């Protein structure tokens, strides 16, 4: 199946439609919440949460013996929450920094989860196979009820986001100040964090424990490049996340043996890469272009100013001078001279140059002009 075929099938084929919708919704909700994680400098929180969820999946299976995805995700949710609040209390009660606490909990829970998984695999039980799909995710196992669950959580998340928008923004920007204004910062914090845990747990089945944090970070990191408004950033991150889901599913469906989760993450990374390079205000490309252009303008202006300095010594400002005189000036090249001629600031005749009237006046006002342009 090629991409074209995919898009013609996506509306009619039940499986494709379910998976596409699921990954799109998942991308949107993780992108939205990821903006908050990124701005709080808790980028690694997602990684810790997803890894912390693994033992919950295994324990839920051991207790119920069923592979019903809702039961397993409930287990993931519980252990994800436990891990998250352990991180919080480690940071609060010890001198460890949050990155250390994140790393500790991540490896501890993941190690325990892996231990349980291998234990389960050794069990003489025909039902055991397939739990390891939560490691790397398997979008193909999504069914309609999973998508409904995602949609409901996303709707709820959107509602809470809109309701507490002001409080979220305040806490993200200045937590201490939020406290002095009388808001219960702990409540706001727990609300945000719980939704992040919820979104991550929802994604485990599709993208898996290992790559889930990319779903949180990549759309947000890309979105930050394009805007300086929080609302726009959250909106863009949701869009980027959703498109990553759709494109990722399309690409993986159109090839055989391409796992959906990793492809979605790769597509999201392309969004990031593109944004880092091509964003007009923060992107590397335009920054470099602006830098070079600025440098060139300054070189030109400085050369003109230097010539003005020489021309000043004569009563007639357009008196010709030898080009040789300019050789010792840093920043002067044949090219800058040519450019000044093109701009009608300078006239060349043989080995001599002279300033035009316009050139002289421009040079005289260069500095004041520069500083007013800066304003």
């Amino acid at each position: 199946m090629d991409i074209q075929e995919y898009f013609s099938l996506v509306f009619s084929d039940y499986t494709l439609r379910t998976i596409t919708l699921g990954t799109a919704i998942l991308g949107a909700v993780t992108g939205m919440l990821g903006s908050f994680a990124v701005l709080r400098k808790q980028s690694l929180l997602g990684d810790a949460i997803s890894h912390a969820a693994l033992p919950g999946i295994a324990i839920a299976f051991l207790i119920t013996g069923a592979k019903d995805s809702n039961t397993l995700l409930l287990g993931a949710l519980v252990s994800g929450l436990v891990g998250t609040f352990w991180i919080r209390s480690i940071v609060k009660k010890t001198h460890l920094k949050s990155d250390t606490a994140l790393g500790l909990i991540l490896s501890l829970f993941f190690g325990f989860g892996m231990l349980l998984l291998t234990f389960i695999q050794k069990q003489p039980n025909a039902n055991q196979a397939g739990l390891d799909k939560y490691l790397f995710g398997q979008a193909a196992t999504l069914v309609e009820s999973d998508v409904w669950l995602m949609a409901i959580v996303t709707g709820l998340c959107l509602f809470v986001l809109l309701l507490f928008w002001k409080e979220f923004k305040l806490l993200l920007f200045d937590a201490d100040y939020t406290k002095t204004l009388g808001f219960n910062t702990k409540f706001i914090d727990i609300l945000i964090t719980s939704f992040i845990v919820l979104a991550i747990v929802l994604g485990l089945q599709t993208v898996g424990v290992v790559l889930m944090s990319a779903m949180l970070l990549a759309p947000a990191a890309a979105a930050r490049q394009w805007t300086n408004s929080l609302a726009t950033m959250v909106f863009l991150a949701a869009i980027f996340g959703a498109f990553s889901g759709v494109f990722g599913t399309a690409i993986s469906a159109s090839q055989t043996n391409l796992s959906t989760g990793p492809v979605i993450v790769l597509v999201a990374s392309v969004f990031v890469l593109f944004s880092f390079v091509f964003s007009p205000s923060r992107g590397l490309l335009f920054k470099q272009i602006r830098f070079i252009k600025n440098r060139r303008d300054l070189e030109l202006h400085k050369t003109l100013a230097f010539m003005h300095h020489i021309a000043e010594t004569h009563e007639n400002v357009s008196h010709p001078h030898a080009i040789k005189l300019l050789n010792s000036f840093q920043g002067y090249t044949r090219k800058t001279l040519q450019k000044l001629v093109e701009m009608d600031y300078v006239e060349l005749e043989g080995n001599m140059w002279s300033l035009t009237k316009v050139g002289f006046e421009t040079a005289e006002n260069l500095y004041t002009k520069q500083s007013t342009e800066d304003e």
Partner: protein
Amino acid sequence: MSKQIAVKVDDLTVAYNYKPVLWDIDLEIPEGVLMAIVGPNGAGKSTLIKSILGILKPIAGSVTIYGKPYQKQRQLVAYVPQKGSVDWDFPTTALDVVMMGTYGSLGWIKRPRQKEKKAALEALEKVGMLAFKNRQINQLSGGQQQRIFLARALVQNASIYFMDEPFQGVDATTEIAIINILKELRKAGKTVIVVHHDLQTVPEYFDWVTFLNVKKIATGPVKDIFNDDNLTKTYGINFKVSVQE
């Protein structure tokens, strides 16, 4: 002098780990003063402010604002944190930050409206930043960022202002602009408490001073207690700051 006491601190002790940062602080700040808190690094100046504001939990002691606990009086108090305490690359504008000053009186969920926006614009004008209202906050200079923080506190329209090193890293123009606003606040009967580092300017800017170095060394009118004796006690070395008597 029978002025009302705006802020009263009793037996306040705060510790981060084992070592107390503040020890048994008793402090009465009369209404309407412009007070500097001075002391060496690590003396607990910011900690004192943060404990009064309820950001930090003290080990012992109590704080009252006009005779009642802070939680009941929070509308009377505004806070200007250290400029370096937030990430200025946050995606928002100058006006938006100043609007945050209105969030406290709005309370949960309610959104700011025209009235709040008008108040924020007025505050921006007061600090001379109206022209920058739509400017991205990461494109403001250090002095401009400090003015934005000041405007955010002004919007709160409080009676008592706590400011944590508002003059840190700002140029002379901004410093003068800020001190003029502080003096205006005092003229309007407000109480202003400032963590301050530059000892030279204390007599010129402030009328009240508290010397702090874990313990309270002295507190009172600048003209009575700002002397070499107290400075030496606070900073531990022999001090000779020429103070006009």
